[in-house]
């Protein structure tokens, strides 16, 4: 079966056993890899209602048919499990050499089950699997853990690991790799921690089965050079993702002061120009053509690798406009293994709750030293407040009460990324219908909203665009497993991806074939949510209430006096459901499920929740 190794490695930490399993061509073609494999495996194997931080949950690393093969930006892996943040399906992707090494070891996915009896490092080298003690680095941050592993095996191996946040079951703990890579903000670091799994190290040496290896090698190498050339020509990497910060500030889309404000006169101090000026190094993922990890010295002289989401949510959102201070908060998140987005939102929520009398404490917006201290308390679950904030904004709001849930900036329990949608209906919808909770990786429509339609519109065209982007970003790139940046930021033709897929698989797929797979995966994930939340309704797809609150409207600037409107948002949501073939609760109808080849999965779901 060219394009896939045809094997999954299943590891049981409880019994310290493993087995090499084979999957069928039908499974491969229906789910492709990455998110598709992860969603299907979790749907089939997890009993609804299990504790995501218990041994019954599974931690999955899933790769795609082009993962690890030299071609534009293929050095990425998907990590997945039931999310401790949301209780629903959770995943994320990160750049890591594991992508290449696990494939070369002969596997398209790794499933980790059970729970170890002591801190453990899983070492995989081709057909060998070892359960090694990790007591020496348990309690240490991700940087020290990485160094410890590199000292043993060299820097060429694939490594994913967790910091103290994952060990202490912080619900938004991430999985980390390389200098500044992180993924699985749905709490996949906590899932690893719950299994006492400190790290996974992989070394593979086998060829990856490919139908036309010579053709793929030529196309891959040619295209690596070409995308790199285009990036240099357009200059995208000069400011990388943080180029968008200044623009968000201009169009009133920047998160400031827990999203209360949409722009700030000091935002320029942490924008892309200043980041580029402060650059001391640049890092990227394996096979990267346009490295996005701009690295600076933080206020303690440590290297901190920054991007827009880190800066937006740990900077302006906390009203901190000193780049080295923002760098320090980012460094701490990376070292502890805390998701920078949720971490920033949790801190801003706490400051906001104190300001509105829902919580007590001396923490304030603009307090960099206090932010550092709190991140440490969260990572260690230290004290009552550290322990509570480690639960995320929604659970903290339920504890604080006094209406604070309205400004807990989350959807389905997962905090929003760094785009303030106070008056951006389409992007608010994108957050609302993201299948893992609020995340920008699924769909990003702001420029479309401003350039090709009107910001005020709640029209069907916005729902259609959200779906179009979900099929590509949350679909194709998450199951073929490659970074979306070449396509999305420098215009690398999307047709290149079926080209790579066909070269490795020997098939003749078009983009339209992939869109069916994307829709199938999104619908399956919806069924996962239905099983966990049988009483689910469309309110689960609503963005935070504060974005609808007229009292929260800007008093000056481009959107003065404007906020989202409930009736209109609900209409936009209905457009989305209608196009997708979902019912009024946002659940795929039986007809939709059958059209997508999910009749069997639908029958399984009906044991827990109803279908229409």
């Amino acid at each position: 079966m060219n394009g896939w190794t045809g094997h999954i490695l299943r590891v049981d930490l409880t019994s310290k056993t493993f087995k090499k399993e084979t999957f069928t061509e039908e499974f491969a073609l229906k789910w492709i890899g990455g998110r598709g494999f992860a969603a299907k495996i979790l749907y089939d194997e997890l009993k609804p209602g299990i504790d995501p931080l218990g041994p019954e949950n599974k931690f999955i690393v899933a790769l795609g048919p082009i993962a690890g093969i030299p071609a534009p930006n293929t050095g990425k892996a998907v990590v997945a499990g039931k999310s401790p943040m949301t209780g629903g399906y959770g995943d994320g992707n990160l750049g890591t050499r594991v992508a290449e090494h696990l494939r070369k070891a002969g596997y398209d996915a790794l499933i980790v089950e059970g729970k170890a009896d002591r801190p453990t490092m899983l070492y995989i080298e081709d057909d060998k699997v070892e359960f090694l003690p990790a007591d020496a680095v348990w309690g240490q941050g991700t940087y020290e853990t990485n160094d410890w592993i590199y000292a043993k095996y060299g820097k060429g191996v694939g490594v994913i690991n967790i910091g103290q946040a994952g060990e202490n079951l912080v619900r938004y703990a991430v999985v980390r790799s390389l200098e500044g890579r992180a993924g699985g903000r749905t709490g996949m670091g906590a899932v690893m921690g719950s299994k006492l799994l400190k790290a996974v190290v992989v070394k593979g040496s086998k060829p990856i089965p490919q139908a036309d290896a010579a053709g793929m090698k030529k196309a891959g190498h040619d295209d690596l050079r070409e995308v790199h050339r285009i990036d240099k020509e357009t200059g995208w990497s000069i400011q990388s993702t943080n180029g968008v910060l200044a623009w968000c500030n201009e169009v009133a889309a920047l998160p400031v002061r827990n999203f209360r404000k949409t722009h700030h006169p000091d935002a320029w101090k942490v924008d892309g120009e200043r980041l580029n000026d402060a650059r001391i190094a640049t890092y990227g993922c394996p096979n990267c053509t346009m490295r996005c990890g701009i690295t600076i010295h933080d206020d303690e002289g440590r290297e901190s690798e920054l991007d827009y989401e880190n800066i937006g949510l740990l900077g302006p959102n906390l009203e901190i406009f000193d780049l080295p201070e923002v760098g320090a908060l980012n460094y701490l998140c990376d070292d502890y293994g805390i998701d920078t987005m949720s971490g920033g939102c949790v801190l801003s929520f706490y400051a906001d709750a104190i300001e509105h009398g829902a919580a007590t404490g001396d923490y304030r917006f603009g307090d960099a030293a206090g932010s550092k201290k709190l991140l440490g308390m969260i990572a260690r679950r230290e004290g009552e407040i550290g322990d509570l904030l480690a639960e995320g904004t929604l659970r903290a709001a339920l504890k604080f009460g006094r209406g604070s849930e309205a400004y807990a900036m989350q959807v389905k329990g997962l905090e929003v990324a760094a785009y303030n949608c106070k008056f951006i209906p389409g992007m608010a919808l994108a957050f609302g219908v993201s299948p893992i909770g609020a995340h920008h990786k699924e769909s990003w429509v702001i420029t479309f909203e401003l350039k090709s339609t009107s910001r005020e519109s709640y029209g069907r065209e916005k729902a259609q665009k959200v779906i179009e982007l979900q099929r590509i970003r949350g679909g194709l790139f998450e199951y073929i497993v490659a970074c979306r940046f070449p396509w999305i930021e420098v215009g690398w033709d999307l047709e290149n991806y079926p080209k790579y897929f066909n070269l490795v698989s020997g098939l003749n797929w078009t983009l339209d074939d992939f869109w069916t797979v994307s829709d199938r995966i999104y619908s399956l994930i919806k069924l996962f949510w239905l099983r966990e939340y049988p009483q689910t309704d469309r309110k689960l797809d609503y963005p935070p209430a504060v974005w609808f609150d007229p009292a929260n409207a800007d008093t000056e600037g481009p959107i003065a006096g404007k906020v989202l409107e409930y009736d209109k948002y609900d209409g936009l949501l209905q457009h989305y459901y209608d196009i997708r073939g979902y019912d009024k609760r946002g659940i795929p109808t039986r007809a939709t499920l059958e059209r997508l080849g999910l009749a069997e999965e639908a029958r399984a779901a009906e044991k827990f929740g109803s279908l229409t």
Partner: protein
Amino acid sequence: MRITVKLIGPFIQAFGFSEKELDVPSGTTADSVLDLVAVDRSRPKIVTRNGRAVAPGEELRQGDRLVISPIYSGG
């Protein structure tokens, strides 16, 4: 009349400035400013006036802020 033009991201290196004020005659349109600041018309871009998307033929007013940005796609 006086307006401010701001470039975003790599346009700063490509077109040689970050932000500048311009004295332009009344009736100047958003589109014509692209030539005044020598922005390459072939580059995909989004232009906003005072934070809102602007039509090419829209006439500018005293004190306007015109922002010319590449089309970012949210990473």
